[in-house]
């Protein structure tokens, strides 16, 4: 089949589906949907439809990015727009099917909005919602909308037309097009993609390799997982275009083993590509041949570093080496190799489909196009977003993300994961682009964005990141192996209330040495979270060291829990739930925590009913409360009356 024929057939099928008289139901079953219970919802839909004998088309789709509202179910009835329902549970499925599919009541109370051209009175348009309106979805263009397991749905939506176009151009022209788009590496470092390809193309040698880095190891980031699960072909098409431009013969996708669904969908996609001759010898009759092989990571963060990743593909310990030689000259098996990240490849296919100039019309002067971010932490609307470069951090957190959970105070946003930094409220106007973030001491990174509120201790967070990088340090170079260990020791003693007067200066000095002398990116960036927290939250370090106090009440060694005698009504819930039996009391007795037994797990604070709020957490100093249970003196219900 020629591409024209494949395309024609895909369009016919797609249109038949759009004009179907049968109701169509879409369930978001990417990993995040599943974690929220999407498979149980899917089962409930199946059951209800067969019980009522309704003939409907059920499609499992990926993630549209509204993770906070998972599980998501969309319904299309003939001649009606697609309606997206959020927070769906298996229990409400029978009612929803009864109300909308049978009785034509779209249940505006449960609907998030409509997708598509037409609208329904009383329902907002989904893409006009605050979370979606500011977004420009290029790499995520199909996510949550099409069936990721059906190549024809991708083709019907413009897929592989970028490849078809590239194959009609010369490899040099393809590279020019990518250069024109201004695309820079989305893995974090931001190296211009076109230039990288050109280096590899010009490298002598017949055998060249191309790698898709899907080893998304940053804790707190899930852009690549979501994209691979929701639209694998967008990434694969990009790889084919890159392979053609560079002259590569063999490609690899290196995907971390923690992403089983992404791996499964990629394998399925590769099989379908081969069936349509979009892979293998003489692709689409162009004379160009290319193969792609899946490689599963085995759990090592450092393998996200390109030279370590290639060692791992070769079956060795994934340890980085110094550059030069760069992979473009000597990479996998010593051959010229080009490596780009998942999101970069998905942008490549869009650029060839729609043109470099079109792509360059988004973003800022030096950072073109869009960037995806995984919003997580103490933010109201967690999820996956794609925004034009240059948007401010504040717009992302407040407009798109809906601000901080529980009306708490924003403290910091962490970009770039363990290689990035913690930026304070005063930086919320900062535009999101490679240069601005680097100047602020952080990095763009691959797109993890974790929001911290007043309950997060910044010293503890720095300690957390260091414990991660320290554990993941491969041990090859001394600055990283020993330097991060020593920094971690200092951070640990500070969070345990044993900080010493010159610890901040020691940390800064060590950080500078590790940053400037470590062998690879892991070590060179590991000090960033420490340096930025010292730069922006120095007072928190000082309070820990000088006053032995944690202002955020987060560092276990520096906090204590107490039960207030004037609030406790002796209900016994905390006594029952305390996992270490550190609480004593009795009916109508004020309960008491034995401080020597308490492990500070916080269960008592969680379970004490709001109407009493008798448990408090304090740091620095002690509260004077009875040491033995005493009779409750206040009359029952006092708290309720005053509240």
């Amino acid at each position, binding site marked *: 089949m020629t591409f024209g024929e494949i395309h024609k057939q895909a369009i016919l099928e797609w249109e038949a589906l759009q004009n179907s008289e049968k109701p169509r139901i879409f369930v978001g079953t990417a990993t995040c949907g599943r974690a929220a219970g999407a498979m149980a919802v899917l089962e409930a839909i199946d059951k209800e439809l067969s019980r009522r004998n309704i003939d409907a088309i059920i499609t499992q789709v990926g993630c549209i990015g509204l993770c906070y509202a998972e599980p998501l179910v969309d319904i299309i009835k003939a001649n009606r727009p697609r309606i997206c329902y959020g927070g769906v549970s298996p229990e409400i499925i029978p009612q929803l099917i009864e109300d909308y599919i049978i009785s034509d009541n779209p249940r505006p109370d449960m609907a998030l909005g409509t997708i598509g051209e037409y609208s329904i009175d009383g329902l907002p348009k989904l893409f006009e919602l605050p979370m979606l309106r500011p977004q420009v979805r290029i790499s995520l263009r199909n996510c949550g909308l099409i069936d990721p397991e059906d190549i024809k749905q991708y083709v019907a939506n413009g897929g592989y037309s970028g490849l078809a176009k590239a194959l009609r151009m010369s490899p040099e022209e393809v590279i020019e097009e990518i250069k024109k788009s201004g695309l820079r590496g989305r893995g974090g470092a931001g190296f211009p993609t076109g230039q990288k390809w050109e280096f590899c193309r010009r490298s002598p040698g017949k055998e060249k390799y191309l790698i898709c880095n899907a080893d998304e190891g940053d804790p707190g980031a899930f852009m690549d997982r979501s994209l691979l699960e929701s639209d694998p072909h967008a990434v694969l098409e990009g790889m084919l275009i890159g392979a053609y431009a560079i002259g590569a013969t063999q490609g690899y996708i290196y995907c971390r083993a923690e992403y089983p669904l992404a791996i499964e969908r990629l394998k399925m996609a590769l099989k379908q590509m081969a069936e349509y001759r979009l892979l293998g010898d003489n692709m689409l009759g162009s004379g160009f041949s290319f193969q792609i092989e899946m490689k599963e990571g085995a759990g090592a963060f450092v393998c996200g570093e390109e030279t370590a990743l290639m060692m791992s593909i070769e079956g060795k310990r994934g340890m980085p080496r110094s550059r030069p030689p760069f992979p473009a000259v000597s990479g996998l098996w010593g051959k010229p190799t080009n490596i780009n990240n998942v999101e970069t490849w998905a942008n490549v296919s869009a650029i060839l489909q729609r043109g470099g100039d079109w792509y360059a019309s988004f973003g800022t002067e030096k950072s073109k196009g869009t960037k995806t971010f995984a919003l*997580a932490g103490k933010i109201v609307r967690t999820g996956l977003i794609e925004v034009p470069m240059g948007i401010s951090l504040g717009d992302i957190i407040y407009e798109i993300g809906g601000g901080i959970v529980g009306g708490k105070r924003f403290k910091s946003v962490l970009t770039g994961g363990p290689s990035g930094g913690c930026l304070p409220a005063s930086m919320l106007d900062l535009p999101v682009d490679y240069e601005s973030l680097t100047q602020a001491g952080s990095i763009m990174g691959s797109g993890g964005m974790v929001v911290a509120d007043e309950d997060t201790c910044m010293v503890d967070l720095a300690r957390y990141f260091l414990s991660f990088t320290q554990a993941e340090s491969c041990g090859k170079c001394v600055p990283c192996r020993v330097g991060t260990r020593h920094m971690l020791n200092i951070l640990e003693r500070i969070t345990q209330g044993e900080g010493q007067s010159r610890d901040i200066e020691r940390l800064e000095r060590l950080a500078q040495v590790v940053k400037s002398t470590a062998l690879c990116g892991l070590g060179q960036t590991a000090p960033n979270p420490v340096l930025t927290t010292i730069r922006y939250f120095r007072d928190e370090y000082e309070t820990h060291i000088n006053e032995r106090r944690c202002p955020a009440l987060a560092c276990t060694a520096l906090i204590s829990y107490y039960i207030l005698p004037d609030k406790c009504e002796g209900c016994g819930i905390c006594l029952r739930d305390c996992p270490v039996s550190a609480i004593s009391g009795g009916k109508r007795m004020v309960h008491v925590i034995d401080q020597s037994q308490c492990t500070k797990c916080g269960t008592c604070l969680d379970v004490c009913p709001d109407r009493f709020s008798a448990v408090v957490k304090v740091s620095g100093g002690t509260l004077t409360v009875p040491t033995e249970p005493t009779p409750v003196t206040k009359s029952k219900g006092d708290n309720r009356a005053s509240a």
Partner: protein
Amino acid sequence: MHEKLTQILASYSGQRGALVPVLQKVQEALGYLPAEAISEIALFLRLSESEVYGVATFYAQFRFERQGEHSVRVCQGTACHVRGSRRILEAVQRELGIQPGETSEDYKFSLERVACFGSCALAPVMVVDKTVYGRMSITKARKTLDEYR
């Protein structure tokens, strides 16, 4: 075991870079990498046992001791950390009576701490076998574990 190994190894004959995938396949089939399997893999790939151990111990995925019937993995990624995953892990440790990296005496559960499953939007997250559980609380974690007892 020998037969299972021979079967797995045969499909990697002559392939370069096969060590990691071989270890993965063997662990999938046997649940962990017993010493005898390491010897056989080394022999087949013409590597020394220490080379095989060198690679296998480098990656977090590989186990060298028999594992429990159910693997419980508590995420300690950044988003989970900020949302209190340490307390979830402590609760699971108490509940199962084992530390991360350990297996219960009855070989029912193995516990691990993992940095990030990429379900950060639903933090804190716990994974039992292949099922991801989001929006965990101490109480939900206990109830989830009860389902596997």
